Structures are given as structure tokens and as C-alpha cells.
């Protein structure tokens, strides 16, 4: 069956494909490990202790950072930079690109971040407290570590990339936003290769945990692997996680010319804004964002097989997203909904990119991984097609729709297709 969407109207140099992905997640430091954990129902959330807040839970990434970065540069830079360098290094290594022969001035780096600089600022204040807040003890590394382009800039330094690099600050919609930026820059021919996605180092800042706790939105459970439980009646908040996920994006014409393996084609995207609240989501705007992405892709809702939900494990957030999805996908018998945060927690700036990545192998194996930790489904989250606790094998997977939303009312949707 031929897939019909907007790509049929575009020349190959306007069609954007994903030709590789590098990632680190709390339950796997490459796509295969990560996917295997998702299908097996394996959580990556652990007990965690952070200063001032104390015992909590978090998703921590374990990867061999020295594979791509010197210990000297690791010390000088930030954790977000290291996560980004690992993800970019893995993406390139798996891309089939002859990196030595790539024109580095034609490579762009677009990294989504939820926040950046909190870790270093907290560390410096903690440090100078020992010196009675004498600012002569404040590190000269603080500014290069905390400038907002830091994670993207560290990747550029590491790889000798001289094309554009910057971060995209888009709260927890940033992973999708980074990919979307890469798509746009490729279509504008601002670069020939885009390294795009998102990263997060947020588990190293106590302020993120403390703020969620003050908001009544920090997850807690006797078993850390059960702490992240979107859609379950006993959910009590977010598990903060670190993570990184960067894709190699190329124009289809270039990918074809070098015989690249294509993981997926990016068919459509949308970003919009609630403009209603600092924190609380707006299901009407979320539904509008999903519909806008479908419309731009010339797709009907019933053409989507998997929707990767954003749900974080907060009562209002989960309910509102389900309300939006119920509205858009009413009557769509073939669509399945899952949630990755139930396995790894909320990887913040990386979330959009990393949650999509875990679903991409479904184009080949037709398996929709589950949402775990749903012991008692909240009736308000009882979407028809919600895949709970056990993965489901589907007849076919042609399109995946990826939701990623963030504070200040930013909504993002990405649609990719089997290639």
C-alpha cells in the first residue's frame, strides 16, 4: 500500500529524513538497549539523593563518556555538554557518514533544552558558601558553562563543526523543537546535515526537584521503578531524569545519494501556545496542535498507528492530554497510545526526541511498547487504544505521532513515517 501524505508533493531536497540516532537514556545507552528495555518493561528509575532535597527518585544515565570526550574537557564543561557529545558521537558513528570527509561548515547543531545553567550556578553558590560568599572564589568557568548555547557549543568544539550551533529553549517540548529546527534549517539549505534533538542535565540541580516538590508534583514511591506512573490513579508526580537524544537529519536527496539507511521520514510538525497559564496545560490548544500537524501532513487521524504521549504522571497534565487526544482521535480504532516516561521518568529537554526514538523500531517490528506501572487506570485517562503494561503487536505501523508539551503553554507535535 502506498502511503499518502504531504511528502508526495515535495521534491526530495525538501523531504527530511532521520538517518541515525545517538542517545543515552536511564534504561539504555543506545537505541537497541533502550528499545529492548521498553519492550521488556524495564524501568530505569532509581533511588537518588540530591543536596537539600534529600532522598528522591531519578533517572540517571550510565554511559562511557570517555569514548568521545577527554576527561579534561569533561571537567571543564557541563554534564549537558557531555550528554550531548555522547549522543552526537553515537549518532555519527552509526550514520554511515565518512565523518572525516564531511564538510564541517555545512553541519548544523540544534539542541533542545528545558533549562541550562542551574546546575553550575547552584554548584558555585554552594562552593563560595564555604568562603563566606566571597566572589573571588567564583569559578572563571561559570560563564562558558552557563551560556545558553553551551551543550550545542560543546558538541561543536568536540567534533570540529563550524556550521551553526545553538540551543532551543522550549521547556519540555524542546526535544521536538530541536528536531523541528533541524528540519527547517535543512529545508532552507542553511546546512546539509543537522544534528538535532535534545539533552537534559536537570537531575543535577536540586532546584528542579525542590520546585516540583513545592508544587506537589514530585513523584514518590516505596519502589523507585514504580514511581513514574502516568495514567494510574496512584500517580503523584514527575520523576526527573537526565538523557540525551540527537538525530542525524538529512535531505532525502542527500541520503539517497550516499545510500544511507533511513530510520524515518519527518512528515509534519506543529508548535503552538496555550497562552492560558504558567504551568497548567490547555487541552483545547493541545488538540489544535495535534490537528495542525495532521493537517500540514495531509493526514487523517486514523492514519496514525502510534501516539507517543507526553504524560508526566501529574493528575491534571495526564487528564488534560487524554482529553485532547480523545477529542482528536475519537473513532480511530487503529491508533495505539503509549508513554515512555513510565519507564525512564521525565528527561526534560531530551524527552520529545528520546520518546520518539524508542518507538521508531516499531516501523520494523510492529510492536507498540507499553505504558508501565498502570495498576489502576484512572478512568479519565482510559483512552481507547492505550497500551498498558504489556506491549502489543500491531498489523502495521506507518505513522508515529509524538507529543511533547512544556511549561508556559508550549505544545509540540512531530509526525514521522515508515520509509
Amino acid at each position: 500500500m502506498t502511503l499518502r501524505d504531504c511528502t508526495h508533493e515535495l521534491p526530495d531536497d525538501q523531504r527530511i529524513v532521520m538517518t541515525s540516532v545517538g542517545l543515552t537514556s536511564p534504561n539504555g545507552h543506545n537505541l537497541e538497549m533502550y528499545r529492548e528495555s521498553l519492550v521488556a518493561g524495564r524501568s530505569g528509575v532509581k533511588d537518588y539523593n540530591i543536596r537539600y532535597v534529600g532522598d528522591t527518585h531519578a533517572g540517571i544515565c550510565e554511559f562511557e563518556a570517555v569514548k568521545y570526550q577527554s576527561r579534561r574537557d569533561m571537567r571543564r564543561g557541563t554534564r549537558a555538554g557531555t550528554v550531548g557529545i555522547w549522543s552526537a558521537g553515537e549518532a555519527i558513528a552509526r550514520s554511515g557518514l565518512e565523518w572525516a570527509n564531511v564538510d564541517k561548515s555545512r553541519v548544523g547543531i540544534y539542541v533542545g533544552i528545558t533549562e541550562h545553567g542551574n546546575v553550575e550556578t547552584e554548584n558555585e553558590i554552594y562552593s563560595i558558601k564555604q568562603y563566606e560568599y566571597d566572589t573571588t572564589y567564583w569559578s572563571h568557568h561559570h560563564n562558558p558553562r552557563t551560556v545558553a548555547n553551551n551543550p550545542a557549543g560543546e558538541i561543536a568544539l568536540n567534533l570540529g563543526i563550524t556550521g551553526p550551533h545553538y540551543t532551543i529553549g522550549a521547556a519540555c517540548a524542546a526535544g521536538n523543537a530541536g528536531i523541528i529546527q533541524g528540519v527547517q534549517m535543512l529545508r532552507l539549505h542553511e546546512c546539509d546535515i543537522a544534528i538535532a534533538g535534545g539533552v537534559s542535565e536537570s537531575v543535577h540541580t536540586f532546584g528542579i526537584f525542590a520546585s516540583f516538590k513545592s508544587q506537589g508534583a514530585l513523584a514518590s514511591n516505596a519502589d523507585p521503578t514504580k514511581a513514574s506512573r502516568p495514567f494510574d490513579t496512584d500517580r503523584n508526580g514527575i520523576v526527573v531524569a537526565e538523557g540525551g537524544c540527537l538525530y542525524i537529519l538529512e535531505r532525502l536527496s542527500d541520503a539517497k545519494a550516499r545510500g544511507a539507511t533511513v530510520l524515518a521520514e519527518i512528515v509534519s510538525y506543529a508548535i503552538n501556545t496555550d497562552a492560558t497559564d504558567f504551568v497548567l496545560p490547555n487541552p483545547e490548544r493541545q488538540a489544535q496542535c495535534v490537528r495542525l500537524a495532521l493537517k500540514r501532513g495531509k493526514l487523517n487521524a486514523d492514519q496514525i498507528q502510534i501516539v507517543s504521549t507526553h504524560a508526566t504522571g501529574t493528575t491534571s497534565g495526564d487528564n488534560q492530554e487524554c482529553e485532547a487526544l480523545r477529542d482528536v482521535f475519537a473513532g480511530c480504532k487503529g491508533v495505539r497510545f503509549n508513554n515512555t516516561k513510565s519507564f525512564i521518568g521525565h528527561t526534560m529537554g531530551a524527552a520529545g526526541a528520546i520518546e520518539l526514538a524508542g518507538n521508531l523500531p516499531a516501523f520494523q517490528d510492529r510492536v507498540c511498547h507499553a505504558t508501565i506501572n498502570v495498576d489502576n487506570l484512572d478512568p479519565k485517562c482510559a483512552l481507547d487504544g492505550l497500551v498498558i503494561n504489556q506491549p502489543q503487536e500491531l498489523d502495521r505501523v506507518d505513522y508515529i505521532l509524538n507529543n511533547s508539551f512544556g511549561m508556559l503553554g508550549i505544545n509540540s507535535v512531530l509526525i514521522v513515517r515508515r520509509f
Partner: protein
Amino acid sequence: MTSAEIRDEILDILSDIAPDEDLSGLEDSKSFREQLELDSMDFLDIVMELRKRHRVQIPEEDYGHLASMGSTVTYLEPKMRDIVAA
């Protein structure tokens, strides 16, 4: 601190700043930059670490004394003479 203890302290600081470098053959009479990959930010790290560890203040006009291990130890000896090694 004796000169030897100051030298050990500088080596310890360098091992933090440049963890990938082999410091075992460092020659005291040659400049650090001839032997190690150090830039201006690294030298500021040496200054900062001495300040944090021992409250030794090094004015900017004296940074040139930190060119080699030999000149660094000579410069620091009077400043660190009364500090008891840990």
C-alpha cells in the same frame, strides 16, 4: 610547606586540571605549556585551586611566575612557608 611539598601540591592540582596528562616526567625547568596542553583557563584553575585550598592570593601581575614548575615553586615558597602540609 617545604619546596618538595609545594611541588607535590602543584602536581596534585595539575592532575585535577589535566587528568589525561602523564605528569610523571614533568621537568621543572621547562615551561608547563611546552610539556602539557594547558591554556589560560587552566592557569586560572591553578590560581583558583591555590586560593581555595590554602587561601594563597596570587595577584594578576604575578601570573608569569607560574610558567614552569621550578618558577612556580620558587614563587610560592615564601607564600606557603607557614602552611602545614595536610
